[in-house]
């Protein structure tokens, strides 16, 4: 496709053509109408003038006879820019006036007529042989005939001027319109081409590219900005996916290797039934751990893909805080940790009850794992965990605060990623997916999980918009 062909094919250019046609037709109609009306108006004026003169001259004739009429006509005919006059006898002999060379027969019929003529005071001119005039022939009593008329050239000239102006303006409208259309089209086309170019290179695999934004805030910019947001999301998802596969490779391979080694070793060295049994039990335990990790990964993937949005219902987040608190309280108590729930006021919210419960459970589970148990001998006060549900503006906050060792600020963002477990916690059981699942659930609901300092300890906050996830407005 040639560059010009591409230009002509664009929507912008086609639109320009349509508008241009409409405008040109309109301009032509307007000017044509104007020209015709001007002509009619001038004709009317001429008629009026001629009628007035005839009335005046008839009056003169009535008062002073043919002699008076001849004198007056002679006198008037000599004035510059005068009308056309001719007074003749019944046989057509001119008595007074300033015209000659009328079309034959003009004088024979009284009334209005258009005729060519020549003024007496101008020489015969080969180039402009004829003028045109609108004349009225009037029969005077006594057989005299009187002709009064006005030159029509002026009217025709004006008419042609207006027509010419019309033609020119239509031509200019078309030329400027086409030029403007091409200019706008090329500008739009350039930007669309730039976008196409970028999207091609994105399709080719460079997900880091972004569509150009001109900064004018027009519709193309808005489109580009929204597409860029979409790209960002896709990039994040792709990045997440890559990370998951890397991490799955790493974190599932480790226990799988352990599983395999253990089985192999049992085959090689175990001699008694008890030994085999122990090895098999270890194998089952290890595979249960694997299944758990796998389930958590699936759950995260599902939360992140947004599928669970279909299951959103209205429920009370305070009830969830109470339920989860109640579920974990004995476990905390057993470890010498005081777990309190502060969720007296209902906190209605729209979301996936099961997932929000699990997210909160994961935070509480984490807090219990890392909170310092009471150690009276060493003078350590009992660990404390506070589970809270708070209404804050149009959000509901589910807060789990502990006074454990906390997480260094530099590591807080990192621990929300999948499988990240800080060195200090490697000895603790767990898949390292608890916090990332909580974060994924918060994101699914259009909210967020933040980890803050509880001075001392950690404060995990799941902030959820009350009305559930809101679609991003365009």
């Amino acid at each position: 496709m040639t560059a010009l062909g591409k230009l002509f094919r664009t929507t912008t250019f086609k639109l320009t053509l349509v508008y241009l046609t409409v405008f040109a037709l309109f301009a032509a109609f307007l000017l044509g109408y104007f020209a015709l009306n001007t002509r009619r108006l001038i004709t009317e004026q001429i008629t009026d003038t001629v009628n007035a003169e005839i009335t005046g001259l008839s009056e003169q004739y009535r008062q002073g006879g043919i002699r008076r009429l001849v004198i007056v006509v002679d006198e008037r005919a000599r004035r510059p820019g005068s009308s056309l006059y001719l007074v003749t006898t019944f046989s057509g002999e001119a008595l007074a006036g300033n015209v000659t060379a009328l079309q034959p027969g003009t004088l024979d019929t009284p009334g209005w007529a258009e005729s060519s003529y020549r003024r007496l005071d101008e020489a015969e001119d080969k180039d402009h042989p004829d003028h045109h005039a609108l004349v009225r022939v009037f029969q005077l009593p006594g057989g005299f005939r009187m002709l009064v008329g006005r030159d029509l050239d002026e009217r025709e000239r004006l008419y042609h001027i207006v027509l010419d102006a019309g033609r020119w303006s239509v031509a200019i409208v078309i030329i400027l319109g086409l030029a403007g259309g091409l200019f706008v089209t090329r500008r739009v086309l350039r930007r669309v081409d730039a976008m196409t170019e970028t999207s091609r290179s994105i399709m080719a695999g460079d997900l880091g590219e972004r569509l150009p934004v001109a900064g004018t805030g027009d519709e193309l910019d808005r489109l580009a900005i929204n597409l860029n947001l979409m790209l960002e999301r896709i990039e994040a998802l792709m990045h997440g996916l890559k990370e998951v596969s890397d991490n799955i490779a790493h974190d599932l391979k480790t226990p799988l290797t352990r599983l395999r080694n253990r089985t192999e070793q049992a085959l090689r060295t175990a001699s008694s039934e008890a030994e085999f049994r122990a090895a098999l039990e270890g194998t089952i335990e290890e595979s249960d751990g694997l299944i758990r990790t796998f389930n958590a990964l699936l759950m995260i993937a599902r939360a992140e893909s947004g599928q669970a949005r279909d299951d959103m219902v209205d429920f009370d987040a305070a009830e969830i805080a109470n339920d989860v608190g109640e579920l974990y309280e004995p476990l905390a108590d057993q470890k010498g940790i005081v777990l309190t729930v502060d969720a007296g006021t209902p906190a209605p919210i729209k979301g996936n009850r099961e997932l929000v419960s699990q997210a909160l459970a994961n935070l509480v589970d984490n807090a219990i794992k890392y909170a310092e148990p009471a150690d009276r001998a060493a003078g350590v006060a009992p660990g404390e965990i506070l589970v809270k549900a708070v209404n804050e503006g149009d959000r509901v906050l589910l807060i789990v605060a502990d006074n454990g060792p906390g997480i260094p600020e530099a590591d807080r963002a990192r621990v929300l990623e999948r499988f990240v477990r800080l060195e200090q916690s490697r000895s603790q059981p767990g898949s390292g997916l608890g916090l990332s699942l909580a974060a994924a659930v918060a994101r699914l609901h259009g909210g967020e999980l933040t980890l803050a300092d509880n001075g001392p300890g950690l404060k995990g906050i799941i902030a959820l918009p009350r009305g559930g996830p809101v679609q991003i407005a365009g």
Partner: protein
Amino acid sequence: MRLLIIEDDRDAADYLVKAFREVGHVAEAAHDGEDGLARALDTPYDVLVVDRMLPKLDGLTVIGTLRAKGIETPALILSALGQVDDRVKGLRAGGDDYLPKPYSFSELLARIEVLARRRGARQEETELRVGNLHLDRLSHMVRRGEEEITLQPREFRLLEYLMQHAGQVVTRTMLLENVWDYHFDPQTNVIDVHISRLRSKIDKGFSQPLLHTIRGTGYMIRDGAR
């Protein structure tokens, strides 16, 4: 107990048939949905174990067809999908329980035994009794012998569920699902702690313990004299 296993994976089906026979049940396998449906219509089984994805006729359709024909044989759905909405779909289609793959046999067995006996009158009884432990579902009173025991609401529901299935193994997951209505894995075994609390309330100071731990599977409440 007579079981029908509708599962297209022959290895898995054979394993289940064998395992059920080992614990004294009669189990048969069907390998596709049509065969399974025909057999379930033909023979009065006690429980059906139905895989969700089956050749010819999928598991949910098999159950739906049976229910439409008025056959109320309890059915447990096995599924590789294992998501909350999938579970809900299974139960809506007429399934009585749902177990995501991979499952442990002891979990499956416990659930099947509960299903087989579910149609007993235990659900409607207002008073449950195991040995000298009494639970009044109307007044929420619990007594062991002459001694009255005070329980928290959740402990009451935990005990109620265990007593409803007295003599049967209930797994941790079953407790989490039926007492707490959670279908996720709470990582740490929180249920164990709840059980030990309950145990200290109902068994402490009595020579005959009623609440037993079944190793590797779950818990059972039963009269020790049995």
